[in-house]
Structures are given as C-alpha cells and as structure tokens.
C-alpha cells in the first residue's frame, strides 16, 4: 500500500515535470526568448517544479490525492489510464515504468563518462615556462579584471591534444594545454579564455555539481534530465555572450570554438572533473556538434536582446504553471 503511494507520487512528479518542461519550452518559443539568461531562468522554473513546488502541493493539499478531486476537479488524472490494460498490466503502470526507465538511462548516459573520467589518471601540470604558458598567463589577468573576478590559477598541460576548461568549486582554475595555444590564434585564445573565465565568474562549476545532485535525486524523471541538459547548454551560451562582451570579438570566439571542437574529435577524451563537461562530452558526439553549430550561429548573428519584463515573465510562467498543475494528478 505504501509502495503504491510512492509509485503514485513518482508518477505525478514525472508527469508534472513533463508538463512543466513542455509548457516552458512552448513559452520560450512563443515569446521568442533569445537571451540565454532569460531562457535559463524559465527552464530553471521547470526544474524547480518537481523539487520544490510539487512536494509543497502534495504536503499542503493532500485532498488532491483523493478520488473526489481526481474525478470532479482534475483536468488530467494519470490513474485514469489504469482502466486500460496491455499484456495484463495497466497502462498507468506501463508508462510509469517506461518513463522511469528512460529517466534512468538519460542520467546514466551522463554519469558514466563522469565515473569513467574519475578512473583515469589525474591531470598533471607540466612546466609553465616557454611562450605558450606565458601567452595564457598574460591574457588571464586583464580578462579576469573585465569580469570582476580574481585571476584564477592556470594549470598548464604539456601535451599536443587541445584542452581548455575550468575546474574547481572552491578554488577554480583554468586548465589549458600546449595544443590549445598552438591551435588558436591570439584573438581566438583570448576569446576562449574569456569563455572559461565567464564560467568561473558565474560559479558554474558549483552550479554544475548542484545540477548533477538534483539530477541524481530525479534520476527516474526523464523530463528533468532533458531540461537539465538544456540548462547546461544555456549556461554555455551565457558564457559565450559574457565572453563576447568582454573580448569584443564574437567572430574570434566562434572561430576558436569551432577549431577546438574539430580538433578534440581527433584526440582521445581528456578526463573532465565537472558534470557539465561530461554532459557535453563523448556519448552524444552528434548532439555536441549540433550544439557547437548553434552556438557559432548565435555568435555570428549578434548579441541577443533580452525581452522586456524578464522577471515578470518568469513569475507569470511559474504562477500559471502552478495553477495548471494543481489540477493535474
């Protein structure tokens, strides 16, 4: 009986996240939200629904779980699918199993590269002398000042493979390899470093771990996994915009991004330490190529203008969603 109750709650959490994510995506497209910060705020509303608002509804309105509410007030009741059967099992159970399995698969697809990366030898910094480390060390302080952050330490890797990412939650650092410096021209390198510093400035390493924790909590919720990935892409786009604003050269950033993407495909994967990195890493190479293409297109299209009443839109979307999902059980 107790397990049936939890199955019901799990089913509702999955259903609510699915509706919330589709609703938010519809709004992002209908309002033509181009600014990555605004897109992220709307999508985080969908992510926050199963974590905060759904438990609040379950606790504050227990009557929503009753037959009377389901039959008289609900506009959609997942349990109504229990009246139909397939292979001796009701369709409600079928779709809970299907969605939970899909959620677990999506979560494991991103967890696996992270776990595999942990088993590889850790990155060892090479000698930080010579023209390549000096070029990076020379560019970092000015960019960090422009982003209003302290200059993070640099970990220089003496290897041909192009590597460039930021790491560390409490003490962020920029990891860069000799191959990256050789591959990019000075403007592209500056733009690429500005992108990584924008991640540091936005505390993205910390946020990525929080997102991964939430994903683990919602590991059976496929919509949550998909929206979390979309938020990770928004974080990349936001870092692109901040980097472009700082270095003032959108073309150099797009060009650097493309060069790095093409070059990394030729080399074995480098162990990453962040879930965001894993999210966009190996398993979905085609998706990643598409993401890079979209990011380059956006950079070439020019800076997106934020919509007016950005916060009002998020608040209204959240309120409308809450009102709608109150009647979905």
């Amino acid at each position, binding site marked *: 009986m107790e397990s049936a109750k939890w199955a019901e709650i799990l089913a509702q959490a999955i259903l609510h996240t699915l*509706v919330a994510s*589709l*609703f938010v995506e*519809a*709004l992002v497209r*209908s*309002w033509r939200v181009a600014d990555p910060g605004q897109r992220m705020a709307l999508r985080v509303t969908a992510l926050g629904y199963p974590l905060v608002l759904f438990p609040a509804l379950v606790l504050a309105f227990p009557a929503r779980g*009753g*037959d*009377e509410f389901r*039959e*008289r007030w*609900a*506009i*959609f*009741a997942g349990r*109504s*699918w*229990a*009246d*139909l059967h397939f292979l001796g099992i009701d*369709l409600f159970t079928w779709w809970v199993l299907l969605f939970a399995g899909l959620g677990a698969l999506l979560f494991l697809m991103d967890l696996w590269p992270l776990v595999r990366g942990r088993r590889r030898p850790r990155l060892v910094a090479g000698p930080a002398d010579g023209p390549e480390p000096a070029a990076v060390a020379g560019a970092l302080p000015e960019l960090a000042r422009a982003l209003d952050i302290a200059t993070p330490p640099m970990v220089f890797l003496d290897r041909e493979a192009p590597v460039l990412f930021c790491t560390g939650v409490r003490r962020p650092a920029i990891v860069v390899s000799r191959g990256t410096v050789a591959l990019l021209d000075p403007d592209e390198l500056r733009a690429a470093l500005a992108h990584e510093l924008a991640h540091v400035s936005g505390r993205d390493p910390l946020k990525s771990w929080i997102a991964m924790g939430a994903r683990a909590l919602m590991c059976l919720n496929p919509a949550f996994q998909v929206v979390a990935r979309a938020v990770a892409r928004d974080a990349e786009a936001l870092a692109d915009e901040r980097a472009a604003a700082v270095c003032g050269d959108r073309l150099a950033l797009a060009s650097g991004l493309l060069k790095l993407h093409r070059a990394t495909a030729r080399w074995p994967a480098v162990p990453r330490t962040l879930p965001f990195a894993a999210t966009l890493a190996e398993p979905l190479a085609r998706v990643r190529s598409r993401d890079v293409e979209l990011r380059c297109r956006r950079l070439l299209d*020019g*800076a997106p*203008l934020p*919509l*007016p*009443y950005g916060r*009002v*839109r998020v608040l*209204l*979307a959240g309120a*409308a969603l809450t009102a*709608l999902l109150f009647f*979905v059980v």
Partner: protein
Amino acid sequence: MTQSVSQTVQRARPGALELARMAATLAYVVAATGAALAALGALPRWIAGDAAASRRVSLDEAERRLGARLPLPAYYPERLAWPPAEIRVAGGRQGAARVLFAARDGGAPLELLAAAEPGSPIADALLEDRTVLSSRKTTVGVHPATLASVLVDGVSWQELAFEVDGRAVLLRTQGDLDELVRMAKSLHIEGRRR
C-alpha cells in the same frame, strides 16, 4: 547592423502593448496545455467506453457518479472489514454499482450489487460471467426475492435478488446464508455506516 536596429525598434514597443502580447501568449499556451491535458485525460475513458466498462472508485465517488445513494446494510457483521475492499460502477447515471466486502480474516467475501434507479437493470459488466445452477422464490421481509446458487468464474456463490425502494439489488456470499439474509433485511438507502 540593420537587423540589430530593427530588433531594437521592435523591442522598444510601448509597454502596454508588450505586456498585452505577453499576457495573450501566456493565456494561449496555458489554454493549449490545458486542452491537451484534458484530451489526454478523457482518452482512456473514450477508448474503454464509459458506458460498458466498470470503474474502480470510492463510495462517495460511486454515489456521485450514479447520482444516487447506495443501499447499505444496517446489520454489518464484525468479520467483514470496513471500508469495502473494492467498489466498481458502470454506466454512469442510471447505471449500477458493485461493492465487495472482504472478510477481516481472509474468510468468505460478500458482494452487493445495486442499480441506481428504479426499473434499471444491474449492468452486465458488473454481473460478470455467471451461471445460475438453481433458484427458488423467497422473501426478504415483505419484499419478494429470488435465492439462487450461481457459479462466477468457477466459484460457487449464494445470491439473493430483490428490490429496495424499487431498485434492483443483488447480494452474494460465499459464506453463511443466514448472515446474507440478515444483511439483506437490514439494507436501506438513507444513512450510512462509517
């Protein structure tokens, strides 16, 4: 550059117009989402055919769906658990309900089937595939009744069919016949044991 300027002009629309557009789009998305959800919610009932199939509900919900109170026994043996283990309705208004009373100790269960309105039959979906082995006329109080021995899915039941306030009622048991008759005599429409 031209595109950027036109975008700026577009985004610089008067505040009221922008707010109205925003609200209209939001209302449209809310309405579309609500309609899609309502359609998905109605789909299983439409596929299953609400008139023919029976649905598992609570006692309150059964009465709401049927639009009538269910007859319940004033005499309720201690051996039977309350609330009923399962309640099914079929046919909506003017339909019927089947209430299954399970025994606390896993003993013989008892079933009550009742039509919602005088003159309405008990839906076949609730009666299930039953074979009457024998039957005889009897009375429940002053009401004429039929006592039958039936097989439902290969299981033998004693079945008492009669009317309460003109509504067809059928009481079945796999156990004691005296208990069945006492419960049948105590059936009434108003009031309810909680």
